[in-house]
């Protein structure tokens, strides 16, 4: 990484914890909720009950939906507090696992689609939205670049802890973040999250080369 890119990346990292994951849309209510529910029922009510329960918004998502992610400050505080309480750090205190396994999880896009066979282990699909190791050109731009992440943070233990919490539950850091709540929603296991954190922070990981 060049000397110019380092402060840019640090800027991006700071922003990561501060920008509500939102578009510039302001909240507006063009139509009665009951009517929307009726349409949703006509479209999804034949799906299995466990699938239908997944689109019933919890308290946090109901607020994000209501304000199209641009929640007022008081609501944002409530969300961050509520989601912070959901974050479970590993009992053994170790936040980093195997970066090689993390690299695979970051590349794996399967899991939790109705086309996936039951029992499919979900990946994190990180590359869909983030640049990670510099050699991988097929990366998305919905989220900030994470290339050189661990190096930029000089493996600061607090940064590692924040990153773990962010992957576990993005909204513990930013109310209505666009990023999935991987741990809180049961998409990724504790072991998988540890491996992703290792992929981001391990000095041997290609993310930091």
């Amino acid at each position: 990484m060049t000397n110019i890119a380092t402060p840019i990346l640090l800027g991006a990292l700071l922003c990561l914890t501060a920008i509500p994951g939102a578009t510039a849309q302001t909240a507006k209510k063009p139509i009665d909720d009951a009517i929307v529910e009726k349409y949703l029922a006509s479209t999804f009510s034949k799906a299995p009950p466990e699938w239908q329960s997944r689109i019933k918004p919890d308290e946090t998502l109901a607020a994000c939906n209501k304000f199209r992610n641009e929640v007022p400050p008081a609501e944002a505080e409530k969300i961050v507090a509520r989601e912070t309480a959901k974050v479970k750090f590993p009992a053994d205190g170790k936040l980093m696992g195997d970066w090689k396994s993390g690299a695979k999880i970051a590349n794996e896009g399967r899991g939790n689609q109705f086309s996936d066979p039951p029992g499919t282990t979900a990946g994190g699909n990180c590359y869909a939205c983030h640049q990670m190791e510099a050699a991988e050109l097929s990366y998305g731009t919905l989220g900030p670049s994470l290339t050189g992440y661990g190096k930029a943070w000089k493996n600061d233990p607090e940064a590692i802890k924040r990153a773990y919490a962010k992957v576990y539950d993005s909204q513990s850091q930013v109310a209505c973040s666009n990023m999935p709540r991987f741990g809180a929603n049961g998409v990724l296991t504790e072991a998988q999250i540890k491996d992703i954190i290792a992929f981001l922070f391990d000095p041997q990981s290609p993310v930091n080369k």
Partner: protein
Amino acid sequence: MNRTAAVVAACGLTALALLWGRPTQAQDAAEKEIERYRAMISDPMSNPGYLAVDRGENLWQEKRGSKNVSLEGCDLGLGAGKLDGAFAKLPRYFSDADRVMDLEQRLLWCMQNLQGLDTKDVVARRFSGPGKASDMEDLIAFIANKSNGMKIDVSLSHPREQEAAAVGEEMFYRRGGVNDFSCATCHGEEGKRIRLQGLPNFSKPGQAARETMASWPTYRVSQSAVRTMQHRLWDCYRQQRWPIPEYASDGITALTVFLQKQAAGGEINVPSIKR
């Protein structure tokens, strides 16, 4: 200045913009290669989607159902059998069905009510696959093609059409599923990508919305099939990790009304050809 803007300014959006706005040379090369591929496959003379147009014409004229009549008496909004420009104005409210319908819903309605056809088999074959032809894909290709050169002009005069547009907008922003995704998660901003795939912004009317909606139905090279907007939205909900949406349901049509509204004025050229 609102809260978000203040936060953004404070933490240096300029730095972010610099980082995101400057693709690497390798990235540029990859994008150029994709563009070259798109240009290569978009030659209409070699677009297999036009075979579906021909098959669709035969299906439109074929006598079927208990009443043994063709679909030529079907009113797609401009009068019985009038095809030119009908697709450009769909979805719309049909008083005989008392429902806002997209082209697929309307065809199913005509099959049932005009032809007396049991549509169970047609619906089972709604999306083609290996050894499984789809009447709907062929019919949509034929009928939509009759709006080529015309502009998307979705009707929003009837209260039910306005309701559908408003519900569609709400659905666009509604987050859910284990990944908390909405349509807007991916299609709410300009110039974003998933992996290397560019994402049209549908959060406001614009060129990306017009070009996208005006190029469906399309022949998908990767799937060797003509795909309709019903299939596109089914696939979006799949990737959104939502439940399977019901084919030809009011929610999908509402979403389509909203998308057509954002795409108003887009010049239709279909079936297009895509990756």
